[in-house]
């Protein structure tokens, strides 16, 4: 079984982003970039399936600038078997990403595609679902448990109010939620080995012709900041202020 894992290079989740003074975008220079945390969980799940003998091939694919090679090597160091870098400079929207990934999938013919449920930069939560639609595959989004059962995959999903379990016919799409697993730290020997593994590179134009954004970004701004309020000395004072001052109790 082959699993394709699309991964994105994003601003590290610990970094604080600021909007550029002219409001045209976010200041990214000098910020640490990492593999999108949800994608890291997707890689981990695929590698575990490989270690259990369910999958044989785990292929990481990233679409982005040349530096996206770093996140592919992160995936290889975790145990992925191959890497593909689709080069593109600039911001590609989920719809275009899904179209490019469909072209990769048509070529690679994976049995499953694991993605993170969303990228933590644009928080769109779309790519996996869109890719599933374009391929005509079923989707198990926000997965907290994945079990391959013959020609099906059984996915437990985190939904509002609890969990839902669905059975999907392979080939299928799974998007990883936070509690699917705890990604491993790659060992130093594996990191070194990953540095030497070849990565297949192709320009985006070889996959899709239209990369133009459908959403024109007019402005970016920081939301109004909340001001710190007052400290109260006791529970009684707190309740009294909530009643009289805030009028909410």
């Amino acid at each position: 079984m082959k699993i394709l894992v699309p991964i994105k290079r994003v601003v590290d989740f610990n970094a604080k982003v600021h909007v550029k003074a002219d409001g045209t975008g976010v200041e990214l220079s000098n910020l640490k970039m990492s593999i999108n945390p949800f994608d890291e969980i997707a890689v981990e799940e695929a590698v575990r399936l490989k270690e259990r003998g369910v999958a044989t091939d785990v292929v990481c694919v990233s679409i982005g600038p040349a530096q996206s090679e770093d996140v592919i090597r992160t995936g290889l160091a975790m145990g992925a078997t191959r890497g593909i870098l689709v080069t593109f400079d600039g911001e590609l929207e989920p719809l275009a990403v899904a179209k490019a990934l469909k072209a990769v999938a048509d070529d690679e013919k994976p049995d499953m595609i694991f993605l993170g449920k969303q990228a933590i930069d644009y928080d769109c939560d779309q790519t996996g679902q869109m890719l599933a639609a374009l391929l005509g595959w079923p989707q198990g989004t926000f997965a907290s448990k994945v079990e391959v059962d013959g020609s099906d995959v059984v996915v437990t999903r985190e939904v509002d109010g609890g969990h839902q379990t669905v059975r999907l016919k392979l080939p299928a799409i799974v998007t990883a939620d936070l509690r699917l697993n705890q990604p491993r730290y790659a060992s130093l020997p594996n990191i070194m080995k990953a540095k030497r593994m070849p990565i297949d590179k192709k320009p985006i134009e070889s996959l899709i012709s239209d990369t133009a954004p459908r959403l024109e970004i007019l402005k970016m701004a920081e939301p109004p900041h909340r001001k710190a309020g007052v400290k109260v000395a006791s529970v009684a004072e707190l309740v009294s202020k909530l009643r009289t001052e805030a009028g909410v109790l």
Partner: protein
Amino acid sequence: MAVLVLADHDNASLRESTAKAVTAAVLLGGDVHILVAGLNCAPAADAAAKIDGVAKVLHAESPRYEHMLPEPLAVLISSLGPSYDALLAPSTTTGKNVMPRVAALLDVMQISDMMNVLAPDTFERPIYAGNVIETVRSRDAKKVITVRVTAFQAAGQGGQASVELLDAVDTPEISTFVSEELSRSERPELTSARIVLSGGRALQSRENFTKYIDPVAERLHAAVGASRAAVDAGYAPNDWQVGQTGKIVAPEIYIAVGISGAIQHLAGMKDSKVIVAINKDPDAPIFQVADYGLVADLYTALPELETELARIGI
């Protein structure tokens, strides 16, 4: 211009998030229709017809729609696409699951988590965990939108829309529902509660949530939430998590107990009207966003709070 809203429901009843999405739909202008797709979902369809501002309810019945699986549902919704200028759904786990699939079938780039309508083609939405708000103008002729429900008031009651039966669309059965475990609670739902009481890692155990948080929540008729740290530690179930990767809430009162205030938690609650923080660490970042901060040990403060609320008759 006509706008279609996908109803979020459990067949027997309509979730409040639907009425909130209707408010957003009305702002786009034109006739607002609601699609209620399910099995034996007439009660939900009838409830949808009573929402103010709704002109028509489309009611589709099929065993395939019972659990709102995205594969058949996206085909049904996209088949209605030609009649509408915009297709909306509340940004619940159902809306987030189904609508991007619809968007791709219609070759439209979706606007996720839309929080403000500036014009019928121009919207605001949060990015970077709500630390940045972007204004986008859609170049697509048709809009596909998920609506951040905390950003819109629910539309009122009193509508008298007609209900029209809609045929199911045949699709290959590539997915099936297996089971569902929904937490049953007497408490209000987290995303629509007027008061939310959340606990953090300082609670130290599941038992302490029951012992210290529950009595106060009971008195306040509050929904109970938790920080990611508390959920990861197993003190609270997953669906209680408030934050960027959990639930986004905006109640009238948000009470954070033993929560330090990590950025990802703040992203889920900072639009609350009044924020109260109880934490024994006076330097906890949560105090920077709290309207009222109490530096205290939660194990003494929560019982005191319950007693105080009882004393004043709450």
